[in-house]
């Protein structure tokens, strides 16, 4: 109904106005897709609102392809993709290349001696460490600090950043529209010939990121343990930032091997959104990204999570305030029930009418926030449907657990009302529209859907599928998923809370 209304109004106003941008038909007119000869996929969305554009480079590899010894390497490479190339960030690449090779040789010698469990020679180790550091100092002499980022900043780029998660790696920023060719050059160049300069300093930086996000945050510490317990075979159990031992061991050579296998054009999707013409973007991308060498797309991951046989529990005794999370294995994004999980998430968690808000926050007043969400830590492979609750002062994780379980039981035994289901469906449609209002947001979404489903249109079809979910679907999926043997529970039990209570009289 909303589409018809909006459509009518626009026709009345005049034909010169751009078509309404909220539906698939409108986007069909603005979006074009090409696959280059080397296998790289390019998506262009014309959105001439202002003379700017944003892009998103999606690489179909994240923590999912890491094995013991190299956990954290996908994220590490993401950091290295800002360090420049053989033409950016160096004062003399020929000499720098030789110096970096010497660093790798020295590091290999140092690292193998360091990790000898029997007969390690401490004096030799010190010598090897010094030799390695000396060579780093030599190689650093050729570095032009942060030249890649400096060019982007200076040329008017904004929002320069990147992310790595369990499923994928993404790179993005926005440029004024007259920098399209410069962008095509810079963005292809960093995947054409990345140089692992300052690798070991950057490894320290990444370890600081781990200290900040994981080690020094109570909930960060808990989530790492939670995922490690929930997954036994699948890489979703490994932290994306990497285990400490790997973060202090892997080498620039490891990073280049990882890059060579996964940063191939057939594994990459590039999206440009903004004041551009597809007819201008295609030849430029062909010209610059066409330089990337053709290579086969990596084969599917072998490991999959075996069915869980028994409930798992993690209890972290921590000086921080209490926290509760539980998760149940669920299928991947391309399973027919995916839309039903989306409905469950919305029903349980969206806004003040959501079931968990009303039960835990509004009525029982035991939680400051409570939520159930669909694909954790990713959706590319079977992941978790997780529930969490933040207890209010004086309330316990046990109370949160009981209240969440009561809501789960309700989903399993009673049909969702017509009104509730209708609200979920309306809200999903309205929220899709709200997600289409920025170049950068659109680029990320079109790219993610194109890479994951092989078609950006699935962004809109996802919403259509949600419209077809029935009461019976919700009940069936709840009954299949939310069972004890499929569950992992993780709790922060506050040691501080116990202390405060024990010493309460003394104060």
């Amino acid at each position: 109904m909303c589409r018809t209304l909006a459509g009518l109004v626009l026709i009345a106003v005049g034909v010169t106005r751009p078509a309404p941008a909220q539906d698939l038909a409108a986007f069909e007119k603005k979006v074009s897709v090409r696959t280059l000869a080397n296998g790289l996929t390019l998506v262009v969305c014309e959105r001439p609102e202002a003379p700017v554009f944003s892009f998103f480079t999606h690489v179909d590899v994240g923590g999912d392809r890491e094995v013991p010894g190299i956990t954290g390497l996908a994220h590490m490479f993401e950091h290295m993709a800002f360090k420049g190339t053989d033409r950016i960030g160096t004062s003399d690449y020929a000499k720098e290349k030789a110096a970096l090779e010497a660093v790798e040789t020295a590091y290999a010698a140092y690292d193998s001696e360091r990790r000898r469990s029997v007969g390690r020679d401490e004096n030799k180790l010190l010598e090897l460490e010094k030799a390695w550091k000396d060579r780093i100092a030599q190689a650093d002499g050729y570095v032009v600090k942060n030249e890649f980022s400096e060019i982007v900043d200076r040329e008017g780029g904004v929002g320069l950043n990147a992310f790595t998660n369990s499923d994928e790696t993404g790179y993005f920023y926005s440029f004024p529209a007259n920098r399209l060719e410069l962008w095509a050059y810079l963005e292809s160049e960093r995947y054409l010939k990345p140089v692992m300069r300052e690798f070991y300093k950057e490894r320290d930086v990444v370890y600081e990121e781990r200290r900040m996000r994981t080690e020094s945050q109570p909930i960060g510490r808990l989530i790492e343990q939670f995922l490690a317990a929930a997954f036994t075979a699948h890489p979703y159990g490994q932290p994306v930032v990497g285990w400490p031992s790997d973060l202090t061991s892997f080498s620039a050579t490891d990073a280049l091997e990882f890059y060579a296998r996964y940063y191939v054009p057939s594994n990459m999707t590039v999206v440009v959104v903004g004041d551009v013409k597809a007819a201008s973007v295609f030849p430029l991308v062909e010209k610059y990204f066409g330089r990337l060498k053709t290579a086969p797309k990596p084969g599917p991951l072998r490991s999959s999570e075996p069915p869980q046989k028994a409930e798992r529990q993690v209890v972290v005794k921590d000086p921080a305030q209490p926290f509760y999370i539980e998760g149940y294995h669920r299928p991947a994004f391309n399973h027919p029930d995916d839309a039903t999980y989306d409905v469950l998430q919305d029903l349980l968690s969206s806004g003040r009418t959501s079931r968990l808000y009303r039960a835990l926050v509004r009525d029982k007043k035991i939680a400051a926030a409570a939520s159930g969400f669909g694909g954790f830590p990713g959706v590319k492979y079977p992941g978790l449907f997780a529930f969490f609750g933040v207890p209010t002062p004086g309330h316990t994780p046990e109370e949160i657990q009981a209240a969440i379980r009561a809501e789960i039981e309700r989903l399993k035994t009673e049909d969702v009302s017509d009104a509730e289901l209708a609200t979920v469906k309306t809200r999903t449609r309205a929220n899709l529209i709200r997600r289409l209002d920025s170049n950068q947001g659109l680029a990320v979404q079109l790219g993610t859907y194109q890479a994951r489903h092989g078609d950006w249109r699935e962004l809109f079809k996802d919403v259509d599928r949600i419209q077809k979910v029935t009461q019976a679907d919700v009940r069936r999926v709840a009954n299949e998923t939310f069972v004890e043997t499929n569950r992992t529970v993780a709790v922060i039990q506050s040691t501080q809370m116990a202390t405060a209570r024990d010493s309460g009289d003394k104060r």
Partner: protein
Amino acid sequence: MTRRATFVALAAGALFAPALASGQAKDWREIQKPALPAFTPQQPKRIALPNGLVIFLQEDHELPLVRGSARIRGGSREEPAAKIGLVSLYGQVWRTGGTKTRTGDQLDDDLEARGARVETGGGLDSTFASWDCLKESFDQVFGTWVELVRNPEFREDKLPLAKNQLNTGIARRNDDAGQIAGREARKLGYGADSPYARVAEYATVAAVTRDDLLAWHKATVHPNNIILGVVGDFDSKAMEAALRKALGSWPRGPAAPRADTTLREAKPGVYFVQKDDVTQSQIRMVHAGIRRDSPDYFAIEMMNEVLGGGFSARLISNIRSKKGLAYSVGGGVGADFDHAGLFQLSMGTKSGSTAAAIDALYEEIDNLLKTPATAEELTRAKDAILNSFVFRFDTKQEVMAERLLYEFYGYPPDFLQQYRAGIEKVTTDDVARVARAHVHRDKLALLVVGKASDFDRPLASFGPVATLDIAIPEGATAGSPPTRR
């Protein structure tokens, strides 16, 4: 508007043609960068009603949405010291407590079924009431918004719920080292009792009553204290008529209260918060900053860019990239619209390099005073700001938000143009002068949150250390004891 869109499209087509004709560039410097086509962003329509309400209307027909937000003068800096948290509670219960005719829960049901939102909230110097809806449900949703703004009920039962939120925040405020550092640095920079630094406690939250919320509403929500911005898929004439009809007869009221914003100087020294469950120290250095209407503002912006703007700035280049001491490091002289900001440097580093990191930050401060900005650094900073200038008005929403901001703080409507002109004029001498005027090593309060036993060198090597007590005071009155089971 239509002509503008066509012009941009044509210009874009034209300027990419030469690039296509050329060959593949080997070096980024060879790449042609045609001038950006002239772009005049669509300005919102400003309407001043006789009752003092100022309205901005910005048509944006891309998506079938209508969004509006009223910014109301008066915020938490104006709340009484014994009732800190009042404005935050007010901002929550305004919406959850419903209107004279409908409860907040009824509003929830009605709005969610339409995929719409009406929200309220409290901030430092203002409160807000906003809506966000599909164009098709504008009449109903705007009606709800008017009802909530003119006739809120602040039902008693939602006040404990809002207090639960604040008390949970208080209970958890020492869990995260970064949060501790941010909060305590503000106290050091502004003074612990300053309206810009003080925080809610169980007792101040417990002291707030429904009458306080009603009184706050009565003291502030009058048309002459409000600026309303509306953006989206509407016809301005029709929207203006609807707004005049709904809000034109609303009588004026007293001006909103205004806090005294004189600031005390920070007390220099070395401050420490013990936190044993971390592997990374949080470091802050802080003293008073400037106001945005200071004549030094533009030069300060350039100094900030050289020091901490982006990856190529000094702090990131030297402390992160070169020394590998931090993931997160940044800082600069803060410049708020109507009160002085703070000069602040912040970073996180592993416990074992805490002292080395402090040395590195001091070195950057010394270096900033010795060699404030080279000609090359200044050019780079100007390029970064001026070449990306178009991103300050690349959406219609942003253009309106900018105007609203200047209106709220009494800045000229063309402040953005003045900013650009101001930046262009800054010289290296200006940067040197403002660095000397506004950055003072001897006035800095140094704060470290971390595990002292793992530090590479005792903090005492930087001067006498004052350990801050961050224990959370228990509630003085019944209602929200933190340790009740």
